[in-house]
Structure formats: C-alpha cells, structure tokens
C-alpha cells in the first residue's frame, strides 16, 4: 500500500482568502512564537499581554510610519517581480542625505515648512537614487537585484557609521558616535496629546497615510501601474505587448527607494534630531517592511493596515526586551514564521492537496 500526495489547482481561490490568509498567518506565527518564547523561559501569557498593550500605544504608530512607507514601496516593486531587498540601505540613504543638508546647508533662518519640503525631496532623491543604481544594474546588465540591493545595505550602513564616528561626529556630543543636534527649524513637529509628548512626528505620519492611497491609484488606475502589473504577472506578454521592462524596473526601484528615503528623513528629523549609528536609524525596518508588503498582499492599502500591525509587533518586541531576558532580535522569529505561513496558506488557498491510497 502506498500513499500518494498530489495537488490540483482550485478553479477559484478559497472564499475570503484575502482576509483568511493574513489572519491565519498572524495566528500561526503568534502561537509558534509563543511556544518558542516559553521554551526560552518566558511566561506564556507575557507575550500576549505585551502585544495587547501595544495595540493602543503611540510607539506602535511611531514604528508603523517607516514600515508603511517602505512597505508600500516594496509592494509596488514586488508587484513587478523586482526583488528590492534594499529598503534598509535606502532608508539610510534618505537619513544620511537629509542629515548632511540639515547640518551644513540649511540656513538657521529658513522657514521650517520650506526646510521640511526641501529635506523630504532630498531624502526621496537619495533613496530613489540608490534604488535606481540597483535598477540600472539589473535592467542593463542583469545583475541580480537581490544581491546588489543587499550589498548596498551593508555599504550604506558602514558609510553612516564612518561619518558619525569620524568627520560628522558632533562637537557637543561628548565623543558619542552621533552628529550635533540639527538646528530647530528642521525639526519635524511631534504629536503632543495633553501634556504628553509622543515620538510620532506629524508630517511623516500624514505622508504615510496619504501615500498608500496615491500608490493604490498609481498601481490600479494608471498606465504605469498597468505596466508594472503586467511585467510582474506575465513578463512574456509584457515583452510582446511592447512594454519596456527596463523602464518598469527603474520606475519601481525609484518609487520603492524614494519612499524608504522619506522614511529615513522622518526618523532623523522627526525622532532623533541628529544622525546616529546606522543600526539605530534603520533598525531593521527595511527588512521588516518586506513582511509588511506581503502581509498586505502587495496592495498599497493592504500594506497600510499591515504596517500598523507590524508596528505593534515591533513595539511589543522592544517592550519584551525590557521586561525579559529576550533580546530584540528574537522578534525575527515571529516575523519569519509570519512570512512563511503567508506564502504557505496562500498556496493552500489556490491549490487543493489530494491524498490517494494506492494498493
């Protein structure tokens, strides 16, 4: 007797799979992660209590902002099958460029609104430029974009650290590896509730709420968006249909890199008000944003919701680090399983496993 396992494509996806797949993945990842946390000596309920607490905290929104911006951009790139893994470096590029301009070029009497616009544009351009570099390498020379964007992440990280330890180290910072505090006309205002100051900065929050809708429009209602979707779903059809694949690669890299760059501007001008060590500026947001894109099913509005949820998870991770011996890196267990469950459940919603017993 032999058991045969085969699979068959379902005539249509399981009903409500757009909701069931992400929700199911979240539940699976939370349960598996809790088991692993218990095995490392954490009380089983602590994780869920911390998570519930984080749902209504401003720190979750603070983390959601860079995650939404980067995640929406990555969703656009992945929709075109362009594997930009470089949001981490693109966040740093935005932060680095905005910091340099804020420190050395913005006159202290410049109007804060003008300064903010200038710095957002600079940050967008820096992130987009870094993305475009990998895009050109891919479009012109077929250099694998996964590896090139990854390498650029590490390169940017080292450049930022070189600057904050070396030439840009602040004279008023007692030798700490960080630049001087930026002049206060470039500070992005933070949300103040009653007399409590939060780390949520208003302009970047507003941008992160508007961008998903703009990108949804771009992706589903414009010619560019149509081309992006065709290149992603059927590259051969795109070629015969006269779509310039190279242009689509460049465009998606500019958008995803630029949005990550804006996230970087928000971090340094809205939260730290100085450039600090690379590991703390980008803090893995660029990698976590990959999950935001997938959890949102590569839909920009989906990424907005997913970004908030992952923001909650990140915030819970930091709390967990404080109240237990677990290091923040452990949150990667949750995000890794989440992403894995997402693509596995996605498979089950599209294919039907058939078990046959053969005698």
């Amino acid at each position, binding site marked *: 007797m032999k058991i045969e396992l085969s699979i068959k494509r379902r005539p249509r996806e399981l009903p409500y799979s757009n909701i069931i797949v992400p929700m199911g993945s979240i539940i699976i990842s939370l349960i598996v992660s809790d088991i692993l946390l218990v095995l490392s000596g954490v009380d089983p309920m602590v994780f869920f209590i911390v998570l519930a607490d984080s749902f209504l905290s401003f720190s979750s929104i603070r983390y959601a902002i860079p995650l939404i911006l980067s995640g929406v951009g990555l969703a656009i790139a992945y929709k075109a099958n362009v594997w930009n893994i470089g949001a981490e470096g693109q966040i740093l590029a935005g932060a680095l460029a905005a910091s340099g301009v804020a420190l050395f070029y913005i006159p202290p009497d410049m109007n804060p609104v003008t300064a903010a616009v200038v710095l957002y544009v600079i940050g967008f351009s820096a992130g987009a430029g870094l993305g475009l570099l990998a895009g050109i390498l891919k479009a012109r020379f077929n250099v694998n974009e996964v590896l090139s964007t990854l390498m650029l992440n590490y390169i940017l990280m080292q450049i930022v650290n070189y600057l904050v330890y070396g030439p840009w180290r602040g004279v008023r910072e007692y030798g700490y590896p960080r630049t001087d505090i930026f002049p206060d006309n470039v500070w992005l205002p933070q949300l103040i509730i009653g007399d409590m100051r939060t780390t949520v900065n208003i302009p970047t929050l507003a941008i992160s709420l508007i961008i998903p809708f703009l990108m949804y429009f771009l992706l589903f209602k414009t010619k560019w968006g149509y081309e992006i979707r065709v290149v992603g779903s059927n590259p051969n059809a795109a070629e015969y249909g006269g779509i310039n694949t190279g242009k689509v690669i460049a465009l998606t890299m500019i958008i995803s890199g630029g949005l990550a760059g804006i996230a970087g501007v928000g971090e340094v001008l809205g939260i730290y008000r100085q450039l600090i060590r690379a590991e703390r500026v980008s803090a893995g947001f660029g990698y976590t944003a990959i999950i935001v894109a997938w959890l949102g099913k590569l839909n920009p509005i989906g990424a907005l919701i997913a970004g908030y949820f992952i923001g909650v998870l990140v915030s819970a991770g930091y709390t967990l680090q404080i109240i237990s011996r677990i290091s923040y890196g452990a949150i990667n267990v949750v995000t*890794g399983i989440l992403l*894995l469950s997402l693509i596995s459940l996605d498979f089950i919603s599209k294919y039907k496993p058939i078990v046959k017993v053969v005698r």
Partner: protein
Amino acid sequence: MLELVARAIIAGTPLLIASIGEIYTERSGVLNLGLEGIFVLGAATSFVTTLYTGNAYLGLLVGGIFGAFIGFLHGIVSVSFRGRQVVSGLALTMFSYGLASLIGKSEVGKPLPTYIYVGDIWMELIAIEILIAVAFWYILFKLKLGASIRSVGDNPNAAEALGVDVVKVRILSTVFGSFMGGVAGAWYILGYIQVWTEGAGMGRGWIALAIVIVSAWNPLLAPVFSFLFGGIEAALWRFQLPPYNLDPYLLGALPYLATLVILFMFMATPIKKYFRPPASLGEPFYKEERTI
C-alpha cells in the same frame, strides 16, 4: 605576507563550505536565500553545543543539522508548496536570525572550552579544500547523481519524463546545501573567530550566494573566490593597524563593495556568456499542469 595567505585561507573556509552547498541547491533549481540565516544559526547552535559538550566536532554536526532543518522547511514551502523562493528564503533568514538570538543570548561571550585549530596546518587545509572542491565537481558533472541534480535544475519536465523525481531531488539538494551552510556557520565560530556575540556571521551568507554566481555554479571555481573574499577580510584586519590606520568602517564596506563590483564585472563583460545559471533556477515545478 605568508601570514596573510594563511588568514585568507582560514577566513575563506566557511565561505567555501557554504558556497559549495549552495551550488548543489541552485543546480537543482532552488535559490535558497535562507543560507544567510542558516549560517548565523549554525554559528549560534554550534557555539552553544560546544560550550556544553566540550566537543567541537559535535558542534559542527549540530550546526549542520539545524541548517538542514531550515533547508527542509525551504524545500516544503518553495518546492512542494511552490511559494516564491525569494520570499521563503528571506522568511527563513529572519526566522533563523531570531532563533539564533534566542538560543545564544544567555551564553554571549563565554569562552569556548575547545576550538578547531587550523592555524598550523593551513597548507594542508588548502590541499584538502581543493580536493573537496574537485570531489564535489566530479559528483556534480561526472556521476549519475550529479546528472539528476543538474537535469531538474535545467529542465524539470524532461527530467520527470525520464523518471527523475523532481520534487525529491530538489528538496534533498536543498537540505544538503543547507546542511553545508550550517556546518559553514559552525566552522566560522569554531575554526575562525572562536567567540560568539549576537549577530555573529551576519552578511557571510549573502557573500556565499554571490560567490556561487561568480563561480558560474561550478564547485571548481568556488575555492578561488572564497579565498579571495577570505583574503579581503584578512587584509581589512591588517589595514586597521599601524602603519596603515585606515578607518574600520570604510574598510568594513569593502567586502560588500568588492562583491558588487565583481558581480558587475562578470555580468557586464563578455565573460558573461560562460556564466549561465541553471535554466530553471527560481522556477517552481508544476507537475500536474501537464496532465490536465
């Protein structure tokens, strides 16, 4: 100078082990970006194992087993479930980072009771490693086993028609490559840096993935580039000291910049035509679609 060569070999060894394993995985048509996490997980688990048992070789084995486990998950998700290989691999890298951090956290910086010491026998080490590379080349290109692996990576439909179990070969190649990745991470700790801190080994897996490309998916070329990258790493350490005193952060960017430049050189010049990836690399295999 001789010291630098010895250091290049020692630093390049984990890269060689990881890249030979990944060559087998990719030759079967599976791209495993989980290799980066596997390397880091292999480092952490072998460190903890060696700390508790005092046996470095058991550490190597445990590192390899954890790697194989992650590779098995990658096989299930990306081969059986046809999940996108890039996404599954990245997910497993994140998961492995987290697991490594959970496993090693309470043991950070503890001194190892024993190492794998190869400082004196680096010349023998080169010979052994070249022999290993030749052996893996022979298996891949001269034996039937290697022919099956290459056939499922180049043309899985034809391979299936000739009676090769594509799914099985792909999953086993992925498990094997990941086992090697785990051993590589273990070797990185036990045979090279000899202490574990959180994040030890991060970035090496990506470099091994780049080595696979510039080695044209051929085990014979893997030692050349592994030792080259090992040499860059060893030179970095040297150039931080007097009389050079170069900035450690700028030097730290160098291996990644070199990877990018070498990738570019191989892809943008006529050499490119000798560097053909396995034809179905990254493509899921749809068996039942033929019969419908």
